């Protein structure tokens, strides 16, 4: 999900890659093409197979609510393991070191445990189909409609961005035509989600999870063999950092030690932003209220499975940095130019500034030279880039992972790695489109357009909305392609929306006094406030220092602090309006609010099947990892 990604910045400039004419990073052989083709055959086979099991609305939109904890858990974590995330975070690790791991650990684990142990019972017991559906039951139609329209717009546009991002990556990595990638992926997604509904999307997310590990795990294993283990990697990074920056710093290997000031760490963030902005508002907002991920857990076959799913997912989430962060760090010491010198990756802005003209020369030497002067590229290499030397290529941070794949994976295995990336993109699209279909059908069409349709009618509406969703996504992909700036706004939608939604749902779930008007106004005004902060920084970049409370803050800090202020603002609105308006009788809040709900008794189980025991293990592991990498 883009909202959790510094790829917000990296991916936002992905279109710039198209401008740089360069050779594809990899050349696939027949064996690799066969691997990719088999994947497409498999997902379409799954779609056709599941069609017969997606006839009722409960089956089509909620996968029959019969997923085990393992499948719901893997699908839950997989929904956040798209290819842009993989590539974006590997690139961020290259830039910022293991600070990027915060987005996988404190930026996910506490929220996942909280969702499983505390919030899931309310979502599950009230039998809602969606997060806007919960808002409807708790706060009424106004809050539901605001959330439903926001989700629907965000998801459909996100699907388009995902589609376009995949096409760009395939163009850069493999040289594939943009339209070919967009249409092949959309047709495959439309077939398998349109036929099998949420069940099909979940199946493919689990499949994608296995493919990503099968395709990407070799990179860190082989990289560590080549660097002589973790000790060798650290030594070589220290040497490289000193040669690049003249500073002998081991900041790249510390999660917390250097976050006492914005200027002391490479990411330019402060621990308060990481803990309260990322660890609380953004993380809890995403993992506990974003319908795309919550929908996976709602499909579990009973309450215990629904509670266990996020906890199972948290183990895998903690392991993901091994295949994402580590390759980025390995790239710092292992990637080489064709002449054997160490390859330094740069930002997309530098790549774009050094776009070559048709003659092979850099089109705008002055702009290119100015952009490169801000990097640590050796002067001789900069000269070779400016002169258009054929082996003087510039590659962006986002390409760290594909470059590492090309380094170690030969025919067949490279196909598997590329298939993992394609699967990640496609399941990202499928997740967005299936969630859009549910929100459109249950939270917009049914309450606002046709309340009296039959069950089969709503399934038909769901299938049609998937086709329409895919078509709109294609339009969004081409819109982004022709108006690059739009990508930043589309990706900001999530981060604008999430904080007010979190405040609304948390107060709704844990404060009986919260009223209908308070929920509606907190959500609506919170979104307006958050969007205003975003536009303020967009139009006046110096405003970042005010939003993040420091002149040393870097763009990465903006998201976390904006989310924090938007949460506080929405919470204040909600409390004030609640105190001024009349609350609902407590009897009406059964199944919706803590303290007004009698949760169903769960059968006692041995400790190894108990969600609290597993959650405790997660907490211990989480604490240990943070201390080890302090």
């Amino acid at each position, binding site marked *: 999900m883009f909202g959790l990604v510094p790829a917000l910045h990296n991916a936002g400039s992905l279109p710039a890659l198209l401008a740089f004419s360069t050779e594809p990073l990899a050349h696939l052989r027949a*064996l690799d093409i*066969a*691997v990719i083709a*088999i*994947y497409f055959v*498999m997902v379409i*086979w*799954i779609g056709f*197979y599941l069609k017969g*099991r997606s006839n009722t609305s409960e089956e089509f939109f909620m996968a*029959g609510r*019969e*997923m*085990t904890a393992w*499948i719901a858990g893997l699908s839950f974590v997989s929904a956040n393991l798209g290819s842009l995330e993989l590539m974006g975070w590997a690139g961020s690790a290259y830039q910022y070191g293991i600070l990027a791991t915060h987005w996988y650990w404190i930026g996910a684990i506490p929220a996942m445990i909280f969702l499983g142990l505390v919030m899931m019972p309310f979502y599950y017991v009230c039998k809602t189909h969606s997060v806007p559906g919960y808002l409807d039951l708790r706060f009424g139609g106004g809050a539901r409609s605001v959330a439903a329209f926001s989700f629907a717009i965000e998801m459909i546009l996100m699907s388009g961005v995902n589609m376009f991002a995949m096409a760009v990556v395939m163009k850069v990595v493999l040289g594939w035509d943009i339209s070919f990638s967009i249409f092949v992926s959309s047709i495959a997604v439309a077939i398998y989600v349109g036929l099998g509904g949420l069940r099909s999307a*979940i*199946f493919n997310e*689990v*499949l994608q999870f*296995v*493919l990503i590990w*099968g395709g990407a795990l*070799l990179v860190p294993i*082989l990289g560590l*063999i*080549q660097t002589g283990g973790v000790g060798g990697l650290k030594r070589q990074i220290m040497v490289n950092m000193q040669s690049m920056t003249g500073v002998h710093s081991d900041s790249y290997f510390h999660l917390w030690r250097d976050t006492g000031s914005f200027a002391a760490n490479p990411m330019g963030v402060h621990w308060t932003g990481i803990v309260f902005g990322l660890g609380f508002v953004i993380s809890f907002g995403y993992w506990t209220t974003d319908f795309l991920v919550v929908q996976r857990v709602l499909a579990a*076959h009973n309450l215990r499975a629904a509670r266990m799913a996020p906890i199972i997912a948290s183990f895998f989430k903690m392991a993901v940095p091994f295949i994402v962060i580590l390759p980025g760090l390995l790239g710092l010491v292992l990637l080489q130019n064709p002449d054997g010198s160490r390859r330094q990756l740069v930002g997309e802005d530098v790549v774009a500034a050094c776009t070559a003209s048709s003659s092979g020369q850099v089109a705008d030497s002055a702009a290119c030279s100015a952009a490169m002067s801000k990097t640590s590229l050796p002067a001789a290499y900069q000269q070779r880039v400016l002169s258009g030397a054929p082996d003087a290529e510039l590659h962006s941070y986002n390409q760290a992972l594909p470059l590492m794949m*090309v*380094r*170690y*994976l*030969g*025919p*067949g*295995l490279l196909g*598997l790695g590329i298939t993992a990336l394609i699967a990640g993109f496609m399941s990202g699209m499928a997740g967005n489109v299936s969630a859009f279909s549910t929100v459109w059908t249950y939270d917009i069409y049914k309450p606002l357009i046709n309340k009296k349709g039959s069950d089969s009618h709503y399934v038909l509406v769901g299938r049609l909305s998937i086709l329409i969703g895919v078509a709109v996504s294609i339009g969004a992909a081409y819109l982004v392609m022709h108006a690059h700036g739009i990508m930043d706004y589309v990706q900001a939608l999530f981060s604008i929306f999430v904080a007010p939604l979190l405040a609304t749902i948390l107060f709704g779930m844990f404060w009986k006094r919260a009223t209908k008007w308070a929920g509606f106004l907190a959500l609506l005004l919170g979104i307006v406030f958050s969007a205003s902060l975003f536009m303020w920084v967009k139009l006046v970049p110096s405003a970042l220092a005010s939003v993040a409370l420091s002149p040393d803050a870097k763009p990465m800090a903006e998201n976390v602090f904006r989310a924090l202020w938007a949460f506080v603002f929405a919470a204040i609105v909600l409390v004030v309006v609640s105190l001024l308006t009349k609350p609902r009788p407590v009897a009406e809040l059964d199944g919706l609010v803590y303290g007004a709900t009698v949760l169903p008794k769960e059968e006692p189980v041995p400790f190894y099947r108990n969600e609290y025991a597993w959650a405790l293990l997660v907490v211990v592991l989480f604490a240990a990892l943070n201390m080890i990498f302090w």
Partner: protein
Amino acid sequence: MHGSGIPIWFFIGVLLLIYGGMALGYGLYEWQTGSYPPLVELTKLHTPVWWGGVLALLGLFYVVKFRPGRAGK
């Protein structure tokens, strides 16, 4: 997956078995002929052979354990 029908694990098993078999087959060919792809590092470790083997074995396990008709046994 809970309930009747082909479990997702069977599909995963089929895919891993096919992919593992392809990688293993190519790895053995490459080892036999000594024609390694240029620009790929650490070819002496014969990664496609052991990684392909691991994937194929894992796939075989899932195919056998979750084959259609075995549910509930």
